[in-house]
């Protein structure tokens, strides 16, 4: 996926539960359907939390990876 496809980047580094999810929610609401948002978090719980959030909201978790204690999620707005 080309980086330029990402419409919005949300940095949730250092934030504890439930802030990464709340920031992601605030972010995704600013996008149109089909647009992409990238969230970077350092909270290890966010890996399962983002999967649960995506499944509950219907926004698609299209990419996910981790490196150096950072977790990156790419979400497509439903």
């Amino acid at each position, binding site marked *: 996926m080309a980086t330029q496809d990402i419409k919005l980047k949300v940095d949730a580094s250092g*934030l*504890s*539960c*439930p*802030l990464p999810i*709340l920031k992601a929610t605030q972010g995704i609401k600013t996008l149109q359907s089909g647009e992409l948002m990238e969230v970077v978090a350092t909270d290890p719980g966010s890996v399962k939390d983002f999967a649960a*959030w995506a499944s*509950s*909201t*219907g926004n698609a978790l299209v990419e996910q990876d981790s490196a150096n204690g950072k977790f990156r999620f790419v979400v497509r707005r439903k």
Partner: protein
Amino acid sequence: MTAEAASKPKKICIIAYSGELEPTWASMIIASTAAAMDMEVSIFVTFWGFHALVKDRRRLPGQNWMQKMLSVMQRPGISHRKLSKMNFMGMGPWMMFQLAKKYNVSKPKDLLDMCQELGVKIYPCQMTMDLFGLKKEDLIDGLEDPVGAATMLQLATEADSTFFI
């Protein structure tokens, strides 16, 4: 996502009964996260839960000396909650907020603002308002009209999950 999930959002109901810092915090985390997950959230606030609904700057609400005494013993407002254990004259909550700042945990007040932004419905209990002598103007803005136990039971039984906190 399934068509069913799209057409019918999950509902949760929180009965916010306790007034101390930790249960208030837990209610706010659950409510804001559920709303972020596109669930319909109702909070029925009753008894000591009202301490979190009174405006932070409102001092001594109450219509008579007994109601005002309650406000003296427990200063209302979501930013003034005491710990249920190890309060140590306010030292406990102070340390808790220092830790929250250090670890980027959001405070109950910020989560309450987020709940309201995300459309969480907060129902004050009419009976408790009468008992504590609370008026609409003593409470934060954006609340639903006060209701009774029957409405709470309807919200609770229609919800997919109910929390008594």
